[in-house]
């Protein structure tokens, strides 16, 4: 029942994910952080099979860090996305595939451009202006088709994100109560209160 969306704007990517952890019909936590800060300029929102999600996210997090330690420079968003995709694609045809869906938001410090990647558990990778996973996608994508602007300021971007969150709260039966929103831009990653 995870809900996550992300959108790009002028020089930033906004990533939002709900904060609930559920076991069947029971909410066991309401302050879970499902958006990992993989590097100073890379965010990853993850959702899917409980257990797989954290295991896979931490595996990615440690390996992205390892690459940076070994090579001094970290992977750029495009390269990180490509490597993460391949990890999922290889896992798909293994004995126990991960069922994890991702949204990767990054800021490329060498070209000064924001990048957003939609990745699913099959290893499907697509660079998109906005994206969503879970039941939220059925509401958010149509809203974003109408309101998304790649040149929008951060304030405008947050307002658009608010619309998505409000619409899900209004129309989705099992809507989550709280969201965590993070942004990545030239200054790095940070949490945004909405």
């Amino acid at each position, binding site marked *: 029942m995870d809900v996550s969306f992300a959108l790009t704007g002028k020089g930033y990517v906004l990533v939002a994910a709900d904060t609930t952890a559920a076991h069947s019909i029971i909410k066991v936590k309401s302050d879970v952080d499902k958006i990992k800060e993989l590097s100073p300029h890379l965010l990853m929102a993850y959702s899917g099979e409980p257990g797989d999600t954290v295991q896979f996210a931490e595996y990615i997090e440690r390996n992205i860090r390892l690459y940076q330690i070994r090579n001094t420079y970290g992977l750029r968003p495009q390269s990180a996305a490509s490597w993460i*995709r391949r990890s999922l694609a290889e896992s798909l045809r293994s004995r126990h595939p991960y069922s994890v869906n991702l949204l990767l938001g990054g800021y490329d410090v060498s070209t000064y451009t924001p990048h957003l990647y*939609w990745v699913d558990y099959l290893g499907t990778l697509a660079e998109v202006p906005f994206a969503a996973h879970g039941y939220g*996608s059925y509401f958010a994508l149509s809203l974003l088709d109408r309101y998304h602007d790649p040149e929008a300021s951060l304030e405008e971007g947050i307002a658009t994100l608010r619309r998505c969150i409000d619409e899900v709260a209004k129309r989705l039966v099992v809507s989550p109560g709280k969201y965590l929103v993070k942004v990545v831009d030239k200054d790095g990653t940070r949490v945004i209160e909405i």
Partner: protein
Amino acid sequence: MSIMQHNGGSVIAMVGKDCVAIASDLRLGVQSLSISSNFEKIFPVTERLYVGFPGLATDVTTLREVFRYRVNMYTIKEERAIEPTIFTQLVSSTLYERRFGPYFIEPVIAGLQKTPSGSYEPFIAATDLIGCINFAKDFVVAGTASEKLFGVAEGLWEPGLEPEDLFETISQTLMNAVDRDAFSGWGAIVHVITKDKVITRKLKGRMD
């Protein structure tokens, strides 16, 4: 619904007079939900050879990477660019390696083949998901709109089309076919390969 229909998408290639064209739609979806309107499925192999991968999107990316690697290795070892016929055999054998757990892709290949006299002749081919090759003289199609592509192409195509006429023919064929397919569309891209240049154009299409 079958895995081959999971992400949607279609590719077509056609032969013209001293040229070939290859085109695809730009949709990426998950079942009926559209995710991206800019997902390219056609990739350059050499200056005069392109390959299209309609099918499961994860395998589109995987196979693109596999063939980029294998073609690079061939180029380094042989110290020459790979020819379309050789590349087709490479595609076939690579897919057949996974005979009992295949990549869910039906590749379409289009390029200009060098003849012993030094000139170029048009070449197109397609394979199924386990690498059975179809060498065609006119056109090849694959993807979720393949039936529609067959119908329109059979009606519009004629031998000996010049590059600009071939562009119009392949574009009309693709657009009208994908407009009747729920899993393909959302814009298109067309490459026309001639001996001295490749003309690439993006087409706007219906967004419904």
